[in-house]
């Protein structure tokens, strides 16, 4: 049985478009030696109910990830750029701090 561990098939991330109008969403992962088998396993596992429209499988080791981290400047966010948000500006129907904005 230990030989199985060595030869464990590749991991694939599964993305499902559950219905029209939605993006593909990550739903989990399957193990399979090749893409066709991965699709079959993903179908059996993640589409037993509902009316799913489409399925993607992507090798897990092909996913390049970046995660927010408290010390990681990768995601600067926009906290110091409040002008990126509509709330930064007065609404069109009210008087703002600097007077009328009924333009």
């Amino acid at each position, binding site marked *: 049985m230990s030989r199985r561990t060595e030869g464990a098939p590749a991991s694939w991330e599964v993305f499902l478009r559950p219905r029209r109008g939605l993006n593909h969403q990550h739903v989990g992962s399957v193990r399979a*030696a*090749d893409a066709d088998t991965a699709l079959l396993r993903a179908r059996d596992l993640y589409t*037993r109910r509902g009316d799913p429209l489409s399925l993607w499988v992507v*090798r897990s*080791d092909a996913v390049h990830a970046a995660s927010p*981290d408290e*010390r*990681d400047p990768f995601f600067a966010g926009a906290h110091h750029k409040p002008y990126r948000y509509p709330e930064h500006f007065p609404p069109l129907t009210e008087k703002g701090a600097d007077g009328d904005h009924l333009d």
Partner: protein
Amino acid sequence: MSARPTGTTPASQDELLAHFDGLIAAGETVEPRDWMPDGYRRMMIRQVAQHAHSEIIGMQPEGAWLTRAPSLYRKSVLIAKVQDEAGHGMYLYSAAETLGVDRAALLDALHQGQQRASATFNHPALTWADTGAIAWLTDGAAVINQAPLCRTSYGPYARAMRRVCQEEAFHVRQGYDLMRTLCEGTPEQKAMAQDAVDRWWLPAVALMFGPPDTEAGGADARAAALGAAVSRRAMAWGIKRHTNDELRQRFVDSCVPQAERLGLVLPDPAIRWNEERGHHDFTPVDWDLYRAALGEDTHWSRQRLAHRRAAHEDGAWVREASAAYAARFGADGPPPPPAPDPETASKAGAGPAAVEDVRGGAGERA
């Protein structure tokens, strides 16, 4: 997705722990690439693996009746149910792998007896009615356990639980429907239903919720403290939301009126409504009762494991053939004719053409 350490500047252990504690306190989920205490990771791997093992071992008692279902309709329902259990195991192995373990290693640990499945299923399904009693009682218990787990602190586990819970509702209802049909049938059929409930009540009430962890659950102070220490740790980390005994009480309260409607008797003479507590009293699950229900190293615990091992070994040729196919053609399958060298094909296939193909096939473009 494997859990790789993030490649950021090293933070002090205290800072990392403070950040982790902050997430838990805020009711946020912990995600695979987040730093987490070793103890949290270990407890999570242990729980998710045990849960996954229980799902696939749990297929066996009902699976044994697939070929003997009394009608094509009941057979179709049971196949769907047992297939779901396999699926639940796969959701959970997938979640466990995000913690940095390999599912093949987890299966090895199960097969070699280093990790266990729930002892609930170390009991035989002697009659057709057992399939109904298992679904009504043990799946009913699972729903009560798993509903709070949909908000457990580890993100992938919580998401797997949400999928599982959606499917469990069908399991419980079909089991109850099966029992009701038997109870409305001949006296022999009703007796069969009662007999099955007599056998599955204790495994459900004692084993599906874990050992006693409060004195209210009937354990003596020392034993309760033992169970409570584990529960407290799991609750502090947001892994569990309720004590075992609290969920056990909830289960008993839900089953009593259901059994009454079926006209079946739950095999516990101590069950009665307690006005003062607003709950049903029942025979406390103390450690003696718990150990008695465990059935460790019994014929049926060995049987379940032997069957699981045999199924795994019987499937070896499929895994080997699949691996050989992939080794020959690469992960993308055989190339279209005329066949180029598989080495270059796999490299070329990963280029823009393949991406376009995925999009076209998935209907992203008109």
